[in-house]
């Protein structure tokens, strides 16, 4: 193993001197995992994720990880990562698009078993019909699996979010998986300037005995351990147990709010929030929106911008407050279903002021002019 000094998360995140790199989003994943003190990573190829897990494999070769292998499918990889986490090690993997759907059943069980896995989801279109292009529709499916959902905009945020997510996922009062979602190609395959601390420091190791559920290692008294076997009985107590356990997972996700606030600064970021027209977006749609805001200002239209960083837990209270004075809330998205607009509509009183447009999908880029058109319509 490579010798790296263990430092506190606070030092690594906020205090350590950083140097600038000009790298792709995939390489940002490598830089994060290099400093994350990950025990095991398991990989399976799918575009646009493959390169990131190739690079994690290189980290294993170079002695930054203790175990790594290529599994046989996304479902098998997500299952194996679950096994590793149940065995008490820090585990990482990544997937995207159809891979996310192939593995889908596993994510709910990660949450159900309260496993502190961190997975990077590099989003891409789903095969209807076949596409390998950018699209965030898979996030719509993932919202109710019970995992924490972070949506990043840039390679810098991707780097920071992966490291911070391990620390949040492993908090005893949280201890549920975190999905770090990043828009495939737009971030994974483009270069950007990012700042990282030196690579001779790393996070403290995971302590499996800090988990609120027993680690499956036969080192503690063998009582009935996993949460699901005891719901395998058809009686009233099992129904009550299952219902209360589902609520417990939701509550664990809620408890992550304070940690997300601490490590990410906030669940949302807002600028010019008192404007009558607000654009609310997540991921790279925020970048396009920022350009549209500039164009609108040049035309003398006052527009505010809200960036949502945490989708689960959803910043319901913040969005409700921010949008209370707005006449229009424009939600541009890189998918056809408009899942973020649905979330926002469900969070505020006057849902008819939410405009679920522009929706761009199938891999097309989003010209800021499309967003500007919506702004112009609202400003009339």
């Amino acid at each position: 193993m490579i010798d790296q000094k263990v430092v506190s998360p606070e030092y690594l995140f906020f205090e350590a001197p950083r140097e600038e790199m000009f790298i792709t989003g995939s390489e940002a994943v490598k830089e994060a995992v290099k400093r994350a003190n990950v025990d095991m990573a398991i990989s399976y190829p799918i575009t646009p994720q493959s390169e990131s897990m190739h690079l994690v494999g290189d980290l294993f070769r170079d002695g930054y990880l203790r175990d790594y292998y290529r599994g046989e499918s996304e479902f098998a990889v997500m299952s194996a990562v679950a096994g590793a986490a149940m065995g008490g090690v820090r585990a990482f993997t990544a997937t995207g698009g159809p891979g996310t759907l192939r593995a889908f059943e596993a994510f709910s069980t990660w949450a159900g078993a309260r496993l502190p896995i961190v997975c990077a989801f590099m989003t891409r279109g789903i095969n209807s019909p076949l596409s390998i292009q950018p699209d965030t529709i898979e996030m719509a499916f993932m919202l109710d699996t019970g995992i924490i959902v972070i949506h990043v905009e840039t390679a810098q945020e991707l780097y920071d979010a992966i490291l911070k997510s391990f620390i949040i996922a492993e908090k005893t009062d949280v201890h549920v998986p975190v999905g770090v979602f990043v828009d495939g190609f737009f971030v994974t395959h483009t270069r950007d300037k990012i700042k990282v601390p030196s690579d001779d420091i790393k996070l403290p190791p995971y302590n499996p005995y800090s988990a609120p559920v027993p680690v499956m290692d036969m080192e503690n008294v063998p009582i009935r351990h996993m949460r699901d076997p005891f719901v395998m009985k058809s009686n009233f107590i099992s129904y009550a147990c299952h219902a209360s356990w589902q609520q417990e997972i939701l509550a664990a996700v809620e408890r992550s709010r304070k940690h997300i606030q601490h490590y990410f600064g906030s669940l949302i970021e807002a600028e010019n929030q008192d404007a009558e027209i607000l654009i609310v977006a997540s991921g790279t749609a925020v970048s396009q929106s920022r350009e549209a805001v500039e164009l609108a200002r040049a035309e003398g239209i006052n527009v505010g911008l809200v960036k949502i960083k945490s989708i689960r837990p959803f910043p319901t209270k913040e969005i409700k407050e921010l949008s209370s004075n707005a006449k229009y809330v424009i939600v541009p998205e890189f998918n056809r279903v408009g899942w973020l607009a649905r979330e926002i509509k469900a969070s505020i009183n006057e849902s008819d002021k939410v405009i679920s447009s522009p929706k761009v999908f199938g891999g097309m880029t989003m010209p800021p002019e499309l967003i500007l058109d919506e702004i112009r319509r609202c400003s009339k």
Partner: protein
Amino acid sequence: MKKDVFKISPCFEDIMPQEYIELVRENTSPFDNNQGVNGLGGGKELIEEHPLCAGCGLALSLRMILASLPNPEDTIVVGSTGCSAIAFPQVALHNIHSLFGNQNAVASGLKRALKLRFPEKTKDIVVIAGDGATADIGLDMVMQSWFREENITTIMLDNEAYANTGGQESGMSQKGAVLNMAPTGKKFSKVSLPEIARESGCAYAGAVNPSNIKRFEKMVQRAILVAREIGPSYLQVFAPCPTNYKLRPNETLIKAKSREKDNTYPVKEYISPTAQEFLNKLEEGKHNG
């Protein structure tokens, strides 16, 4: 596992059940007494009750497998959806019931994690799953764990049907069997998984039934010890299903014996040369010792 974790809190001494007092004070723990199948019925067991049907071959086999574990205090069982999953909550071992068919993938991650955390200790990972989970929905992950030479033991409880979901045809049902989802009879033969296991990299592969208790114990122990030291192993256990095949509860073992006798479910054992050498040393040592 440290066995001295079993203790009685002094303030509860006067209200503890007698069997728990015996467990702690008179050393009746199944973790302390490697009595094997001889010890069945003589003290605390790793499974004492089960919620399965009367005469269930799977319940009997599971009980015998657990009694045969060479290292129960450091054994983790990975199961899958099926009848056995309903019995696992009664088993006094850490056990993982994940999803349907992904048991060998979960076991791969778990085994590697425990190797990292306990490099000096023996932690046996034993997959115990039904025939649907092993030969049908999970076959990909079962075989891939063999290809990767994971140090895990896979034990199939073969009742020749998807039993817990209501008696559907499985890959292990006999050709011609009329079952749910095979209304005109199964169209293809029983999957020959011991042979597939042998060709897929298992150092030990076998098929057995619970009618001969000492032979059964020996094969379970061989499968686990080979997986610990040499490479992946597979054991297929014929566990007749009285409910779906309309047997009387007392006919389970008769069925197992007759299927062995008429060669429709023969006992098989394939051992790789390296595994054979290892077992020879071990078993000679036992005889001499």
